[in-house]
């Protein structure tokens, strides 16, 4: 089968935009509906080993951050064990991290809240600069300890100060908090194929059945709990051929 070969040629970074409109070619279409088998590719599952973008120190800080933003509890893992840091690493290593799809022409000015983010730094660079500043801040304030080595209470205080803008890391006060919170939540709830939501634990926590595609039998079963466990894209029977 051709599928494994195609998977090989897809880089892990390019998966979200494998069918990028800018990379496609002009075509003349006539005489019938064109047919290109498997034209749009499924995403390639993330290999959780190692880091693609973060340095080891950065990765440790991000793991510590995501594990306080979404702490573990007896039923559901926290952000670290569920894979949020791996998710963020793979995302910032790819087109999301470089803001490839966004309008990034200058000049850059801050506007009103209603005009939306005007950050010059794409997410990957935002992380690099903010994590360096976080490290400097923690070492300066907590006896040369990096963020990951602090107590949970100290970490929570710093996150609260990032949220309020009291510790001004990132492009603007509060901007790094927003960035890392959004990315962490996405890693928690996105399909496990992207490296987070390991074992679909986040979906199990809320009762979301995932990538099932047919609830015909359930539309008129009112006020009844859906009994089946979630499935992910990579679990789909069509992938096992």
């Amino acid at each position, binding site marked *: 089968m051709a599928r494994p070969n195609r998977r090989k040629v897809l880089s892990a970074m390019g998966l979200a935009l494998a069918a990028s409109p800018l990379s496609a070619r002009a075509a*003349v279409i*006539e005489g019938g509906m064109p047919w290109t088998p498997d034209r749009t590719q499924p995403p390639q599952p993330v290999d959780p080993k190692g880091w693609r973008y973060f340095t080891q120190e950065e990765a440790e800080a991000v793991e510590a951050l995501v594990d306080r933003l979404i702490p573990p509890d007896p039923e559901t893992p926290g952000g670290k064990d569920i894979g949020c840091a791996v998710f963020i690493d793979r995302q910032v290593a790819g087109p999301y991290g470089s803001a490839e799809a966004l309008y990034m022409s200058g000049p850059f000015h801050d506007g009103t809240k209603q005009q939306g983010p005007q950050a010059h730094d794409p997410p990957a660079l935002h992380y690099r600069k903010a994590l360096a500043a976080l490290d400097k801040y923690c070492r300066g304030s907590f006896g040369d300890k990096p963020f990951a080595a602090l107590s949970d209470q100290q970490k*929570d205080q710093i996150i609260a100060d990032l949220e309020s803008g009291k510790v001004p890391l990132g492009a603007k006060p509060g901007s790094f908090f927003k960035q890392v919170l959004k990315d962490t939540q996405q890693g928690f709830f996105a399909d496990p194929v992207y490296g987070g939501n390991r074992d679909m634990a986040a979906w199990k926590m809320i009762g979301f059945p995932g990538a099932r595609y047919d609830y015909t039998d*359930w*539309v008129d079963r009112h006020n009844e*709990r859906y009994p089946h466990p979630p499935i992910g894209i990579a679990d789909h029977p069509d992938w096992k051929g």
Partner: protein
Amino acid sequence: MARKLPPKDVVIIGLGWTGSILAHELAQEGLEVVAIERGPWRDTATDFSPAFAQDELRYRLRHELFLRPAQMSLTFRNNRDQTALPVRDWGAFMLGNGVGGGGLHWNAETWRFLPTDFTLKSHLVQRYGQKFLPDDMTIQDWGVTYGELEPHYDRFEYLCGTSGQAGNLKGTIQAGGNPFEGPRSRPYPTPAQKQPFAHTLFGKGAADLGYKPFPQPSGNLSQAYTNPLGVEMGRCTYCGFCEWFGCANYSKASPQTTILPALLRQPNFTARTECEATKILLDKSGKRATGVLFVDSSGAEWEQPAELVILAAFQLFNVQLLMLSGIGQRYDPLTGEGQIGRNFSHQTVSAAMAFFDKKKFNFNPFVASGAIGMCIDEFNGDNFDHGPHGFVGGGYMGNVQSNGRPLETMTALPPGTPQWGAKWKEAVRDTYLSTIYAGSGVHGSCYTYKTNYLDFDPTYKDRFGRPLLRMTMDFHDNELKMSAFLTDRYAEIFKAMGAQQVVKKPRKGPYDITQYQTSHLCGGAIMSATPKDGAVNRYLQSWDVPNLFVQGASGFPQNAGYNPTGTVGALAFWSAGAIRSQYLKHPGPLVDA
């Protein structure tokens, strides 16, 4: 230097709903038709697999099916005192890209506008008097009536297989349908979709308060259907991955599932994908289009000569291309003169979050379709007396929650919930199955004002070095009052359903380019009775260039309290009908200026 292609009879810019309809109608006349489409070819079988279409990150958050701002964006400001800044990532609306256009990623909510929506200005002045309207409001009559459009609404619904319950059949009110709708000549082609628990409960709560709830007209089909072109569609499976996604089940009405298979069989039709139209070319008189200039994905420039030009891009890009082509006079908000860019509108959407006792209510929010929902229309248009309220306009409201996708659904948390930490996690866990939140539950109208318009940005450019479009847009008191009133009524229904806590979210100003409402941008090249008041006549024919027809919501003088696609489709058939029955016999202006 552009290479010149052999002439065609018709060149169409954009292959979404209106481009597909016009292409099919004109190809039926035996004309040689070519469509120029900026984005890629897309089709169900090759692009939307039920194995991986249900991917919230890829399609909902990373916007795979949409135009990328890197390719084309616009700038935004609330008013003329501000400096507009680029929209760097999409927020308030989403812009489709590729074959199918917005018809691919829409929810398929397939409404008709009210008869009085088409005669809005004269109706409101007659009922309430001119002084009841705000001074700077610029609403207009459409120049076409509901009665004239009815056969064309019918054609669009039968093309799509729309699932619904008629409320007014040839003037007779039908139980279970929308009693406020204009008379329809026959029932919907397929019965209404079944409703999940939360939507059913909303219908009951609304009925308890004396309203007349009805199922939302849906382009996600309740049963298999073969349309008049012989194209077959399947039954919707309530997968909960509809809007922002392509449908892998052939169940969502889109150009791909209703018209393109028939169109592509026409030997006199050709589509060119990954080709961006950059200009409509005019002859020396400036009164006649000679064709279209476009750039392909390699950067090569081509000229496609044609006798008839159909501009069928998204609303913003219709307006932009008219401006870039020097067609019509650009609107000046200081003098009120000029037609291109005026009467820009969007939607005034609001919502309420309803939290129910999780021990008693389990909604399974993931069981849904894009156009699911029970709605009421008591507060739409002029269906109620506005006299005591001091505003005009309205909207339908309903539980139209279309999904339980976690990243979208988790935004509905009780007030006071922290944004992170153990308490956030608990709140997400404890509310997911027992909360109702439809982001566009109250679908308010957006009327037009002198100060809301489109023109060219003086600073920011696209990748060809051309000016970006600049949007100057804010909400006015009329719309904010309307939103507050409607949202109060909406919240009362959730209370009647037994919600423990209802959090009202009326629309507040200023207009925010980051807050998603709908993708229903309207106006900028509006229909009018005279060339002074708009860009196109009642047949969507350019007043300035009679062999140019401008399709879509750019022609709406203002936006009603409904989703626009039903009306966009009806206008396309109406315009195509005028071209076929009148224009082709006597090419020239169909309405005397």
